């Protein structure tokens, strides 16, 4: 694996006289109903030689695409630029950037030496002429240029919004091809923006619902390679899979890691009945968490590992429940009209994302963990299977279109319900699992 050296560029001084902003430093307050995206400019990063020219251009475009893709930022076209930035060190003409209404300015430089790539960047509050945070550099190999661009964009995002970014992350999903009745499915992994797709299984057996470990090193998934749905754990770097030994039932599915990565919670089918179990990965021992004649599935831990939210039809229709992580009495949290499924606890701990089916439509929604403040973010013929971005700002999910030519596609949506957009994959895509920010 590529290793990144991250270091503060010490000794950089502000090159312009400080000007105090009337309203304090630039800050995009995300919880106050952003309507207008924040305009920013990112002049092409300055290459230090011909070998760096293409990388500088490509990195700049990825940084811009990351920020624009959030729906929270709007890029000002370089056609409008008055100033050129031809040196990373030269003073900036803030008046020129103010004149085109840029509120944030990102400048950068790219150095290539052999297969080593170094990116330096700064983020500026145009109004005050002040730097937001400190200049920073990322170094790695040239083939990791996209990751370095994502890291720059994550820094810009977090300095302007005050919350963590999510661009230097990966998504595991099921790549789908062929018609609905003969669909071929393969496990795949890619960058969050759809780049660098890598296939982890072939399509000989149906595979379902990969789930990242908390550190992103492993994936749980369900495969029919024995003829029965069974849970496997896959080492992502080595692409080596191991079947997990679940007790006394032939079918197991819907696994998810605990926040410490040491155990999993999953569904086991015995005699046609589906209950929740928990397995300690080191010992391979499983213990039962639920014991009812109802269907209990789609479990997801709270970030602190103390509770599990899951789906059960014990009331007659599928609804969402929360129980202690070791089992015990469950509290129903969904009470709206319709059927609720696939709950996923947000990384911030405050929300549960879910699939809702009501009056022939499917929705992705969020509610607080006590079931209050339910909001539906999407609506279509079939939306399902939400997964959270590492910062809890964005939800990715599966959208399937109807009819004989129906096709599954990954989509993402901001938790405000805005910025619904497809995530490009080579074939169809389903069952996304959004991994953590990479180191």
């Amino acid at each position, binding site marked *: 694996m590529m290793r990144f050296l991250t270091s503060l560029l010490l000794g950089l001084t502000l090159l312009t006289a400080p000007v105090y902003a009337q309203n304090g430093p630039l800050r995009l307050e995300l919880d106050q109903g952003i309507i207008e995206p924040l305009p920013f400019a990112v002049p092409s990063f300055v290459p230090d030689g011909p070998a760096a020219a293409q990388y500088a251009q490509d990195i700049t475009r990825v940084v811009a695409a990351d920020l624009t893709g959030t729906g929270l930022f709007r890029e000002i076209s370089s056609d409008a630029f008055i100033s050129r930035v031809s040196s990373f060190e030269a003073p900036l003409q803030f008046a020129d950037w103010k004149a085109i209404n840029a509120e944030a300015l990102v400048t950068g430089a790219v150095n290539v030496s052999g297969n080593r790539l170094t990116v330096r960047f700064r983020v500026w509050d145009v109004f005050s002429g002040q730097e937001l945070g400190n200049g920073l550099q990322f170094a790695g190999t040239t083939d990791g240029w996209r990751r370095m661009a994502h890291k720059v964009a994550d820094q810009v995002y977090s300095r302007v919004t005050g919350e963590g970014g999510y661009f230097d992350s990966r998504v595991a999903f099921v790549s789908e091809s062929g*018609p*609905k*009745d003969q*669909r071929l499915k393969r496990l795949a992994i890619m960058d969050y923006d759809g780049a660098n797709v890598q296939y982890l299984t072939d399509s000989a*057996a*149906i595979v*379902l*619902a990969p789930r990242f470990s908390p550190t992103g090193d492993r994936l749980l998934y369900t495969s*029919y390679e024995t*003829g*029965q*749905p069974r849970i496997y754990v896959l080492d992502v770097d080595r692409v080596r899979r191991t079947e997990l030994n679940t007790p006394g039932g*032939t*079918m197991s*599915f*819907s696994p998810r890691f605990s926040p410490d990565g040491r155990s999993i919670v999953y*569904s086991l*089918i015995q*005699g*046609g*009945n*589906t209950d929740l179990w928990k397995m300690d990965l080191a010992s391979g021992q499983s213990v039962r968490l639920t014991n009812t004649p109802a*269907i209990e*599935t*789609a479990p997801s831990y709270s970030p602190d590992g103390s509770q599990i939210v899951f*789906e059960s*039809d014990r009331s007659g229709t*599928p609804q969402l429940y929360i129980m202690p992580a070791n089992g015990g009495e469950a509290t129903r949290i969904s009470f709206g009209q319709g*059927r609720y*499924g*696939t709950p996923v606890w947000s990384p911030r701990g405050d929300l549960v994302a879910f*699939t809702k*089916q009501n009056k022939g439509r499917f929705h992705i929604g969020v509610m607080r963990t006590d079931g209050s403040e339910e909001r539906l973010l999407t609506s279509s*013929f*079939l939306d*399902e*299977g939400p997964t959270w971005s590492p910062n809890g700002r964005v939800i990715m999910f599966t959208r*399937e279109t*109807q*009819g*004989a030519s*129906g096709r599954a596609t990954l989509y993402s949506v901001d938790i405000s319900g805005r910025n619904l957009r497809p995530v490009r994959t080579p074939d169809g895509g389903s*069952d996304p699992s959004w991994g953590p920010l990479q180191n």
Partner: protein
Amino acid sequence: MNVLGKVVALGVLGILAACTNNDPSTLGGGLGGGANGGGLAAGSPSDPRSPAYFQQTVGDRVLFSIDQSTLTPQAQTVLQGQADWLLANPDFVATIEGHADEQGTREYNLALGARRANAAREYLISRGVAGNRLTTVSFGKERPIEICSTEDCYSKNRRAVTVLTGSTLG
């Protein structure tokens, strides 16, 4: 009365669906939806001891109402025929595949398909078929046989299919 009428109609449809497909290449695993192609459909449909007869004349599948895993009277009739055939042909073992339509999440449908397969299995056992001849598997909504997105198709996809997977005599 209306509800009962509908259920009867669905049951008949199911039998028709099983009877109208005469292409041997699509039988067994293909028609049943088995991902592994392990199904047998050998022999002539006119030979009452053949898997082809079981599939097409006895009827290899039963259908379910939305979200349900209870067996309709029609389903019980088909399963009684399956039990009679399995008792008369003790060399065969079977896998019962449970399926769901696409209205529902992947996870819930997997669990629902397991309920349906198990309901069929329990019925066959209640009619005397040895449990160790009958395994179950759920495909959830992964293997529809009809791919339109209307109740016409959904009703055929909500099924439990008894796939003859081998002979105990090898």
